[in-house]
């Protein structure tokens, strides 16, 4: 049973969505979803690292000895994360300051190592790109939805790239959505909602 390349891409969006389906890589997702702008940058950064490391690992997979594959994967991922880290620091210092420790922590984001181990190590380059793109997009979508809910609900407006995109007038925003507990609540309820819509319990 060989899945098509398109299927490799789409399965990451809902069924095997890294956050709701596989429930991995949560830490960064919760932390950066308090602002839409941060969520976009984090999504792009994580997707870039995922696609790039998938490509490289899939290219070198025949040369990697089985016993030391994990350290090799980690070094590959760490190199790409360093690229992102330094690029962001140079070109987007404000966002870099807001994302803080989360950029270096992409190294240990289980989604990326998980995809390297479960997919890129066993499949060809094209399919690995599709897989990385799909999982990256699925990840970005979820944190974007959470960020919209949390920023709009928590501050009453969405400000991205110095433009106010939406602003609710006469709305008293509950600040809890912006703070840490709000992230847990939003995620838990969204996940429950998704399960309800898919019609499956546990």
């Amino acid at each position, binding site marked *: 049973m060989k899945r098509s390349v398109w299927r490799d891409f789409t399965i990451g969006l809902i069924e095997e969505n890294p956050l709701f389906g596989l429930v991995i890589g949560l830490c*960064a997702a919760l932390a950066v979803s308090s602002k839409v702008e941060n969520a976009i940058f984090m999504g792009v950064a994580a997707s870039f690292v995922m696609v790039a490391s998938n490509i490289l690992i899939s290219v070198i997979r025949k040369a990697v000895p089985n016993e030391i594959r994990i350290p090799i994967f980690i070094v590959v991922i760490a190199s790409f994360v360093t690229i992102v880290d330094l690029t962001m620091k140079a070109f987007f210092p404000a966002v870099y300051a807001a994302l803080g420790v989360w950029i270096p922590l992409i190294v240990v984001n289980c989604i990326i190592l998980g995809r390297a181990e479960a997919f890129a190590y066993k499949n060809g380059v094209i399919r690995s790109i599709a897989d990385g793109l799909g999982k990256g997009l699925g990840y970005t979508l979820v944190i974007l939805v959470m960020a919209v809910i949390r920023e709009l609900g928590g501050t009453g407006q969405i400000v991205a790239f110095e433009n106010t995109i939406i602003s609710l007038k006469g709305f008293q925003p509950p600040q809890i959505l912006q703070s*840490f507990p709000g*992230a847990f609540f939003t995620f838990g309820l969204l996940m429950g909602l998704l*399960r309800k819509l898919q019609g499956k319990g546990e």
Partner: protein
Amino acid sequence: MQRLFLIFLAAFLINNILLIKFIGLCPFLGVSSRFDTSIGMSMAVIFVMTLASMACWGVWNLLLDPLGVGDFLYIPAFILVIAALVQFIEMVIKKVSPTLFKALGIFLPLITTNCAVLAAATESVKPGFWKLSLEYNYGLGEALVYTIGIALGFSMVIIMFAAMRERIEIAPIPHSLKGIPIAFIAAGLSSLAFLGFKGLFGI
């Protein structure tokens, strides 16, 4: 002495790594469904995190910083140190104490990808990411206290949570919320409680 106590408290309660900083959530959700696995995981984390931070402190202060390559090599260097250390600890424990290995064995490989360990190491070496209002630049002793605080905070929450989730298992809750979603909502409530510590002693 007072400063050490404040650093400990800041790491342990006020900036609790799980509930306030969201770091290390994957192992948290993975092992907190049963009480005994959560204790095993806590022990492993306390052990590895302390050693890893010390090792990274040494690598940073003796190697990376004097050579001036710290800013762009710290991520690969720290993660390699941690991965090697975990492997090494696994081998030593296996040889020295088979009982301890039985208890911690399955958790050790998981810890390499536990972001809490990398975060604790980075933070005790390059303080500033988490913006505590203490003065920075930890010496070895302060970095040690800080790491132990983080590790104990992680363990306390994970054990507390395991007890809670065992009760939730038998509680009547909506079908679609069972399992992970309700765990998140419970985590939200605990996090709300921990927010109460904010500003304690002006930290």
